[in-house]
């Protein structure tokens, strides 16, 4: 029983990574800086990525598998069986930290979706139990799961997903009782309820635009090699794939919450913040953490939006459209920082979760046969390798982000503003990366 959520690492306990060394942080920051201006100076002058033509059709045998009914059904069944199994642990399991619900919720679901989507494409869309239930309802009533009673309002875009993602990170990072079963169960019940009502009202479009997990997973899958155009499965370079990300209202909100919250997770464990919060008794630690999380997300959004908007424009664009037109370029930065921040957590608590899953009701059973496995802490025992991996991930994410933004800039900005127009955005990205490295060093 551990109701002391406030100071637990990422909501679940255990030791955390060592900070990276100052030498490594400075080397990473220097690399990011140099690459940024190198890209600006020597990269191509005509846009390379065109969603209408990029990529080539996937080989027939892959298409035959992926587009077959049995393949789709298989993953729907896998997703639903896991959903029922973990749901049973949530409803009938005990309120102990060894209940696998916490690991599945905070580690497999939240962090695990990122590598899965990078490798296999929009994974959550394929296994989402809420989509499956919606499909089941449609089959029973003889309606079309893609359409609902109403048309999804275009203006809403991804904003509901941004709100949903914020609700998740709030529960994980701020809410003091995040490792008690009641709040997690309530959060999941609310998620399922909102998704089912939304699906009934607006059809599958709702999941595509408003399901926080599907939006997150599909956005990350834009950095995989798997794409689709007019229902044709494509293989294309991750950067070309990323460039084809649909521009929708609220995209900037989604990336701001994703990056801001990960940065705050680093920041809230730093000795500075812990001491500050504990020395300022006027406001509770809970209130400070609320304020901190919100400030990080809003600041990331504001810095990025300002960076995109400080440019000269042609007549064909409105200034306030720019943040969403560039928002896809934050995705690699988010992925790089997620790797840096959650790699050891995913590997180690992820294994622990697999072990705990074998005993969902905490009564000593071993349903899956994984109950006697041991967690390998190999990664934690190699702190230098871990630190190097983190910095390489952050710098690589930064480089890809800068290239994505560069290609978009030369496509949409008038030629005379292309160089100067990119500078403010470049500074914003450098600020994110150097700030992220600083947090890894100071955490």
């Amino acid at each position, binding site marked *: 029983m551990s109701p002391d959520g406030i100071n637990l690492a990422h909501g679940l306990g255990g030791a*955390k990574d060592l900070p990276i060394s100052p030498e490594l942080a400075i080397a990473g920051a220097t690399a990011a800086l140099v690459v940024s201006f190198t890209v600006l100076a020597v990269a191509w002058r005509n846009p390379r990525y065109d969603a209408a033509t990029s990529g080539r059709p996937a080989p027939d045998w892959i298409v035959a598998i992926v587009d077959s009914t049995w393949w789709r059904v298989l993953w729907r069944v896998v997703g639903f069986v896991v959903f029922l199994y973990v749901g049973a642990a949530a409803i009938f399991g005990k309120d102990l930290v060894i209940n696998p619900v916490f690991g599945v919720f905070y580690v497999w679901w939240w962090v695990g979706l990122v590598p899965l989507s990078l490798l296999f494409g929009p994974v959550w869309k394929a296994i989402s139990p809420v989509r499956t239930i919606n499909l089941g309802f449609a089959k029973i009533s003889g309606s079309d799961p893609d359409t609902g009673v109403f048309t999804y309002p275009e203006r809403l875009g991804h904003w509901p997903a941004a709100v949903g993602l914020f609700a998740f990170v709030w529960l994980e990072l701020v809410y003091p009782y995040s490792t008690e079963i009641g709040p997690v169960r309530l959060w999941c019940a609310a998620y399922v309820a909102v998704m089912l009502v939304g699906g009934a009202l607006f059809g599958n479009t709702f999941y595509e635009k408003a399901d926080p997990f599907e939006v997150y997973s599909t956005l990350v899958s834009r950095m995989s090699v798997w794409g689709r155009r007019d229902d044709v499965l494509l293989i294309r370079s991750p950067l070309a794939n990323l460039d084809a990300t649909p521009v929708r209202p609220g995209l900037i909100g989604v990336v701001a919450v994703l990056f801001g919250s990960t940065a705050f997770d680093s920041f809230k464990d730093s000795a500075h913040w812990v001491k500050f919060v504990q020395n300022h008794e006027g406001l509770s630690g809970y209130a400070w953490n609320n304020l901190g999380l919100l400030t990080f997300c809003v600041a990331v959004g504001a810095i990025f939006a300002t960076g995109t908007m400080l440019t000269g424009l042609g007549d064909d664009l409105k200034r306030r459209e720019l943040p969403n037109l560039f928002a896809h370029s934050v995705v690699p930065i988010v992925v790089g920082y997620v790797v840096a921040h959650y790699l050891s957590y995913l590997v180690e608590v992820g294994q622990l979760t697999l072990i705990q899953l074998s005993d969902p009701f905490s009564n000593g059973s071993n349903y899956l046969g994984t109950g006697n496995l041991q967690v390998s802490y190999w990664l934690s025992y190699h702190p230098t390798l871990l630190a190097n991996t983190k910095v390489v991930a952050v710098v690589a994410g930064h480089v890809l982000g800068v290239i994505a933004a560069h290609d978009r800039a030369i496509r949409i900005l008038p030629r005379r503003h292309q160089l100067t127009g990119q500078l403010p955005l470049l500074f914003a990205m450098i600020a994110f990366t150097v700030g992220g490295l600083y947090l890894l060093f100071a955490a």
Partner: protein
Amino acid sequence: MRRPLAALAVILSTLTFVSACGSDEAPSSSSTDPKVIQITIDGDSVTPNGDRVDVAVGQDVELDVTADAPGEIHVHSSPEQEFEYEAGDSTFTIKGIDQPGIVVVESHTLEKTIVQLEVK
């Protein structure tokens, strides 16, 4: 695409080179004296109040607790450890931690971080 990629390769290799220089000190022996941390818990306040403390891998940590009321201290190592103390003076030993990382030592009763052990 080729030139930026070449530049990237150069920079990443520089990075590896730079980072290779500044790491991997000799592993410290576990036979060193224990690190002693004096902890005072008085009402709602705790000293130290969230400080970082460097600890060698394998080094024992001794917590000397002076408290005005009984309570509980949690050590967020992997796996976690808990100590219950009574009012007055008590002493606990955290056995040498051999997994490098940050371990939070927390007053469970006050929900405050006492120290963060930087094990390396």
